[in-house]
C-alpha cells in the first residue's frame, strides 16, 4: 500500500512536470517543470531501492544539467516572443511527432508482449540487506563492466576537449586583416564580448 501511494504521487509529479515542459510558454518555467519531472523520477528510484541512482539523478541532472540549461536561457535571453511558425529545420516537427508516437507504440507493445508490468522491485541488483546498494554497484562497475566504464570516461574526456576546442577563439592567422579600419572596430568589439 505505501508503495502504491508513493508511485501514484511521484508518477503524478513526473507527468505534470513532463506536460509542463511541453505546454509552458516561458523557457525558464519549462526548465523548472523538467526539474520537477527529474525529482519525481528520483522518488520512483528510491521506491525501487535504487538509492544511489536517485541521488545521482538529483545531483547530476537536477543539480548540474538543468542549471546549465537555465544559465544558457538567462544569459542568452531566449525570447518569449520567438516566432514558432518559422521552422529552422525543415520537417523536424512531423518527424518529432512520428518518433514520439513510434516510441510510445514500441513501449506499449513491449509491455503487452511481456504480459503487463510485473510490479516486482529491483531484480538487476538482487536486494541484499547485508550489503549496500552502492557497494554492489561499485563492485560490478569496477570488475565486470570495467571496460565499459573506462570507455565512458574516455568518451567524456573527448567531449570536454571538443567543447574547449569549439569555444576557443579562431587561431590568430585566420583572423580578419588588422589594417583595415572598419574590420579593426569589429575586432575590438568581438574581443570585448569574448573577454
Amino acid at each position: 500500500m505505501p508503495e502504491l501511494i508513493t508511485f501514484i504521487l511521484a508518477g503524478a509529479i513526473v507527468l505534470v512536470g513532463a506536460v509542463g515542459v511541453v505546454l509552458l510558454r516561458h523557457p525558464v518555467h519549462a526548465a523548472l517543470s523538467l526539474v520537477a519531472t527529474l525529482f519525481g523520477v528520483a522518488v520512483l528510484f528510491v521506491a525501487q531501492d535504487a538509492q544511489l541512482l536517485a541521488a545521482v539523478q538529483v545531483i547530476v541532472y537536477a543539480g548540474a544539467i538543468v542549471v546549465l540549461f537555465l544559465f544558457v536561457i538567462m544569459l542568452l535571453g531566449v525570447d518569449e516572443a520567438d516566432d514558432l511558425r518559422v521552422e529552422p529545420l525543415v520537417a523536424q516537427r512531423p518527424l518529432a511527432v512520428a518518433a514520439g508516437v513510434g516510441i510510445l507504440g514500441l513501449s506499449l507493445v513491449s509491455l503487452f508482449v511481456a504480459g503487463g508490468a510485473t510490479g516486482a522491485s529491483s531484480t538487476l541488483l538482487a536486494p541484499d540487506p547485508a550489503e549496500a546498494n552502492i557497494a554492489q554497484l561499485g563492485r560490478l562497475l569496477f570488475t565486470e563492466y570495467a571496460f565499459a566504464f573506462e570507455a565512458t570516461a574516455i568518451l567524456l574526456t573527448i567531449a570536454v576537449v571538443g567543447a574547449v576546442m569549439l569555444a576557443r577563439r579562431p587561431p590568430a592567422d585566420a583572423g580578419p586583416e588588422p589594417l583595415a579600419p572598419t574590420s579593426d572596430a569589429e575586432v575590438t568589439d568581438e574581443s570585448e564580448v569574448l573577454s
Partner: protein
Amino acid sequence: MDPLYAHGVDLAVVLITLLKVVVAFVFLLVATMFMVWFERKIIADMQHRIGPNRAGPWGILQTLADGTKLFFKEDLLPDKADRRVFRLAPVLAVVPAFLAFSIIPLGGNFTDGDGTVSIFGHRTFLQLADPPVGVLFFLAMSAIGVYGIMLAGWSSGSKYPLLGSVRASAQIVSYEAALGLSVAAVLLVTRTLSTNGIVAAQSGRFIVDWNLVVTGVVPAVIFLIAGTAELNRPPFDLVEAEQELVGGFNTEYSSIRFALFFLAEFMNTVTMSALIVTMFLGGPSGPVFGPEVLRSWLLPLFWFFLKLVLFLFTFVWFRGTLPRLRYDQLMDLGWKILIPLALGWLLLLATIRVAQHEGWPVPLAMAVALVVLVGAFGLLNLSVRAARRNREHEAEVYA
C-alpha cells in the same frame, strides 16, 4: 539502518519519528537564531564595538526581534518580476536547507555503545534520517539549494540580482567538485556513505581515529574552504558584494521572503559546520563516563555542540579577518588548486589502501605515488602556463 524501523512500523514508531522531526526543526531554528546573534557579537568584539545589547541579556533575543519585525514589513513585488518564480525562489532556498540537516547524527554513545538511545523503550539513533546514500543526500540538497539563489536573481527582473545569481551559481557549481572529492576521501577510509556509519567508524580512540587524522588533514582543509565557498560566506561572498551589486541576488526581496533567504543562509552554515564535525571530527563521539543518562545522552550531545560551536566560530573568524577574493582568484583557487589537490590526495589514500591490502611495503608505495603525483602537478602547471602564454599571445595579435 535505524533499529527503530527494524520491527515494522506501528503508532509508537510514527510518534517517535514525528517527535524527532519537531526536535530537529526546532533545534535548527534555535541554532540559526543563536548563530546570527553569535556572529554579530563576535564580529563586534573583533572590531571593538559592543554589538547587539538591547533585546534580552547580552542582546541574545535580537534575532527574534529582527525576525518578528521582518514578518510585519511590506512585501514588495517588483513590476518586472516573474511573479510565480519570484515567489517560489525563497521556498526553494529554505526547504533544502532544512532537509539537509536531517542526516546529521546529533548524539548517542558511539564510544562504547552502538550509537543508539532509548526513547519510550524503543532503541533509535539521535538523527532524523539515516539514508543509505547519506552524504550524497546532503550534496543533492545543496544542488537543489542553488535553484533558490539562481531563480531569485533571475526572476527579480533587475540587473544586479541577475549578476549576483550568476556569480553564485558559477561559484557553487565550481566548488561542488572540490567538496565532492574531499568527501570521497572520507568515504574511502570509512567505506560507507551513511552519516551514522561514518561517525561509528571514527569512534575508536579519541582524536587519533578521527577522519581528520586518518585522512591526513588535507581533505578536511579542502572541505572547509570549499564549504565556505559553497555557503557564499566571506571571503567568498562575491554573490552579495554590496559595493558592486547593491545586495546581490536578494536585492529586490523584502519582508518575509528576504527573511527566508537570510534564514536559509544561516541554516546552511549550521548544517555545513555539523557536517564537518560528522565527517572529520567524529560527530558526537568523545570520552564518556558515569550513568546511562550521562553516558548516552548528555556527554555525546555536549561533545557535538562543542565541536559545532568551534566551526561556527571559525566561519565568523573568516568573515572578521579575510578580505573578499576577486572573481579570477576565486576561480583559480577552485579549479587550479583545490580540485587537483583533492584529486591527488584521494589517489594517494587509495594507493595506501591498495598497498596495505596487497601486502606491498607501504612507504615504498607512498614514495612512488608521491613521485607520480609531483610529476602530474608539474605537467598541470606547465599546461596552465602554456595556456596563459597562448592567451596573452592571442590578445596581443587581436589588440
